[in-house]
């Protein structure tokens, strides 16, 4: 079964972040980015279906972004908050590395 690993990366400073997978809430937290590695938090999910809709939102600011992910094999999604508060989702077939 393919694995989806979602990394919360740049721009998080303690605001509430909610992740929905196919409409179901799978994460609610207040991540903070460690700027020296550009990483805040991570979650992994085993998903049976070949596709999944990932929605990321920050309720306080009202920002939200969703994307359809191809899960034919393991997938890694990097999520960041841009300085203007918008959400950026960056899928990758390779795991993210932090230094």
């Amino acid at each position: 079964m393919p694995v989806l690993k979602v990394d919360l990366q740049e721009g998080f400073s303690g605001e509430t972040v909610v992740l929905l997978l196919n409409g179901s809430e799978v994460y609610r937290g207040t991540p903070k980015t460690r700027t020296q590695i550009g990483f805040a938090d991570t979650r992994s999910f085993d998903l049976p279906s070949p596709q999944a809709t990932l929605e990321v939102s920050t309720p306080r600011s009202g920002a939200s972004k969703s994307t359809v992910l191809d899960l034919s094999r393991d997938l890694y999604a990097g999520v960041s908050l841009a300085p203007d508060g918008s959400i950026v989702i960056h899928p990758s077939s390779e795991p993210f590395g932090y230094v």
Partner: protein
Amino acid sequence: MANSHSKHDAIQEAVARMKAEETIEATSLPTPTIPLPLFLPNSGLYTYSLLLPLEPLPSIPTPIPVPIPGPAPGNGPTGGVEATEAVAPSPASLLLPYEELRLDVDGNYPQMKASGQISGFRVTPAYWIADVVKTASNTYEGNIWYKDGNLSLIPQTNVRIEVKRTLFSPQSAKVTFTGGGASIKVRAFKYKSRYFHPVNFEFDTAEGVTPVLSYNTGSHPNRPASLPAENLSIATVYRRTGFNVTISGSGGTVPIAEAGANAKWSDMEMHDAMQIHWSKFTNAPRWALWTFFASLHEMGTSLGGIMFDDIGPNHRQGTSLFLDSFIKNAPAGDPAPSAWVNRMIFWTACHEMGHSFNLAHSWQKNLGVQWIPLANEPLERSFMNYPYNVPGGTSAFFSDFEFRFSNTELLFMRHAPFRFVEQGNADWFDHHAFQQANVSPEPKFSLSVECAGKTPTFEFLEPVVVHLSLRNITPHPQLVEQQLLASPEHMTIVIKKRGKPARELITFSQRCWQENSNVLMPGEEMKDSVFLVGRNGWDIAEPGYYTVQACVHLPNEDIVSEPVAIRIAPPKGYEEQHIAQDLFSDSAGRVLNFDGSRFLQSANDTLRELVERFPNSKAAIHAAVALAGPFASDYKQVAVDGARHTLKVSKADQKEARQLLSPLIDEPQKAAATLGQIDYDYYHNRFKPLLEEMRKAARAGR
């Protein structure tokens, strides 16, 4: 046992090699041995000191770095020495003056900059940076574009540097400071070193790990054609960056037991190891860094290295590499996988150590504390950029990477006020980069920040309001946008608690105004108030000392205020501390900022409790005004019921509003002192009918 013994030998040998390099000056050429005498460039550190006692200057508090009136960088030298008369009093002579000059005009990666430090006995020092060009043999001139610290010590705006040298080495530099309406100052500096700052490195390795302290730059075919093949050490990288690197210790081994039962390192375990094994450990700022080679962090294979030391009072003294992480995996099909891995580990080591010098990632340059937004450098071929994040990935990155830092990073490490760079000094990410504001040499305006209540001391819980004042300091009328001081997008306000990082005020709202201009006559000023709570939270809340500074961004110039010191008094008791936990919240801040809400009920409950339990406090006045607002007139709300939105109008409750607004009538001076006269007058105008009724009732009652 034999294997771990050989790994232990490996780090000891590598450390010994780097120590041997200390006796050989590294140059930009991969010359394995350099014949003596050396040919030294003009670049480096020069010093000036005078031991005779002279009149001392009074001590001046250190402000947040303030860009100063001066020509924008790149405008070139003024040419020659200006014969100016001082129009402002020149600074009194210093007691035991000491100055440093850092000249950066040749040698490794010259930045064509000159910078300096001016200090004296019991005097806050000043720092300056100039762009310079070569105007004659061994002569450099340029404009000073950055000043920090005690600005009275560096009123001049131009610098001319004449280096005197032998065939092989600089001996001295005559520096002439001119311009800025100040007296001409001439200093004779003695050459001290080809490096800008010292730094000490100590390397340790976890049991069972082989470190990489050097890399053969010719060992992998993917490299720039111009890159010389050499056995490049970490120490040499930093020497070429401008640091006089010394190596301490002999390459010790840290027992794996210190990583706990899972044999993976947590930040706490690494911090403990640093304190135990680093021979130079001391909780104080110093140019020294501990680098630890380990196997894996508890985060797993996704973490290749980290500058872990971001806790406690002294950050950035320790950094770690994890050699069994993803950095050990060469891509499939790589022509030289062993060399690829060595290169990746070497790059990661220099990268993590770069964080200890307070360097952010190349794509983070515009984050964190800044005066002016910095440009990110996402494509830069620097140690501080991820090779796998650039277009074309690692292959593209290393095809034109020259094992160096970027020019903006070199500028920072070599010339920024040293407290921003030195390990253990400024907190991680605080002042990781700096930028000059666009300050005119002849500004048309001055900006001042003053406490709304005229006193710089505030009660605990009392929200802080300041007044901004923009004054026309020219002899001519000046046009200025009418709502300039009410437009957050046109200003930067920075708040700094003593001992903590500076924070920028991010207001809750932005307004779009119809453009209208005001005319400010000579000497005339415009004013507005600023509530120092925003989306960043309550940056002024805890007892202690704070500094507030503002910058207004006009179309052609920035106007920067002097810093203002503020003190928050301690709480009077446990009760105040208890309510502070609810008051210093985002929602309470919003209610106070927007003068009330009928929606944010928990914040309203807190403000009501504040009014009831602390009726004589200044904070209660702010709370009462905010609670009164929604009751003073009919209140509209959008009610949401599923997809249905309706407008709901709540009737005014003027009896409630009158009761809450009574401080404005009963104690007008106290109310104005905490709200500030500008906001007091605003509320007085806004609630005028109610307040008139209250006065009438009061007169009738008599």
